[in-house]
């Protein structure tokens, strides 16, 4: 299991090299900065210390619940340009269903329980903080 919280861009191919060796299925999800409403970048704030602990706790919980053989979570903070990866999760399991479900579960949790806050940066500078979506909170009740 590996959890990375960093401001630098990450190299997905390098991180996934050897990930899940021996498993039957690997699922990866990567979230990118979307260009809504003239946005040119996102600025992500986080809670140093709590972020790493919370991500590790939840990666362990996902591994137990879905019998994952490996979990990777990488999440950036700071300024992230349009189109660039914000975060990635990868799960490995003997079969695909557990790998998909484990990744889905981790993503639903990350959206509304990991201590990150996004702010939109437009061409004219910093804009507003992104509001949490009810749909993201509702998604957690699936689990």
């Amino acid at each position, binding site marked *: 299991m590996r959890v990375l919280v960093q401001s630098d861009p990450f190299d997905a191919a390098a991180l996934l090299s050897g990930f899940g060796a021996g498993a039957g299925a690997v699922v990866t999800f990567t979230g990118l900065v979307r260009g809504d409403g003239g946005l040119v970048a996102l600025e992500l704030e*986080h*809670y140093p210390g709590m972020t790493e602990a919370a991500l590790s706790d939840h990666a362990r919980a996902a591994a137990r619940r879905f019998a994952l053989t490996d979990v990777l979570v990488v999440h950036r903070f700071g300024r992230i340009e349009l189109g660039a990866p914000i975060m990635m999760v990868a799960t490995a399991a003997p079969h695909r269903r557990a790998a998909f479900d484990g990744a889905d579960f981790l993503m639903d949790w990350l*959206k*509304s*329980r*990991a201590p990150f*806050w*996004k702010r939109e940066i437009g061409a004219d500078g910093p804009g507003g*903080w992104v509001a*949490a979506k009810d749909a993201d909170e509702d998604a957690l009740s699936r689990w």
Partner: protein
Amino acid sequence: MTLDVLYFAWLRERIGVPRERVESRAETVRDLVAELAARDDWHAAALADLSAVRVAVDQRLADMDASLAGAREVAFFPPMTGG
């Protein structure tokens, strides 16, 4: 007791500092919110609508009725928007 109180995102901006050390007699998070809101208008405004505020006690998510017995660090922030 002495508490480190942290603020993130728009709470940090409205209160004007990312963290402060406070002397508190609060037994619960709700008591602490009342003490902080009484400090000045900025705290009061930022903490006026608690439906928009989440809290962590010693870096674990908690609720407004959580006990502060033995706590050292309390953080206030808006609903999280990771992923």
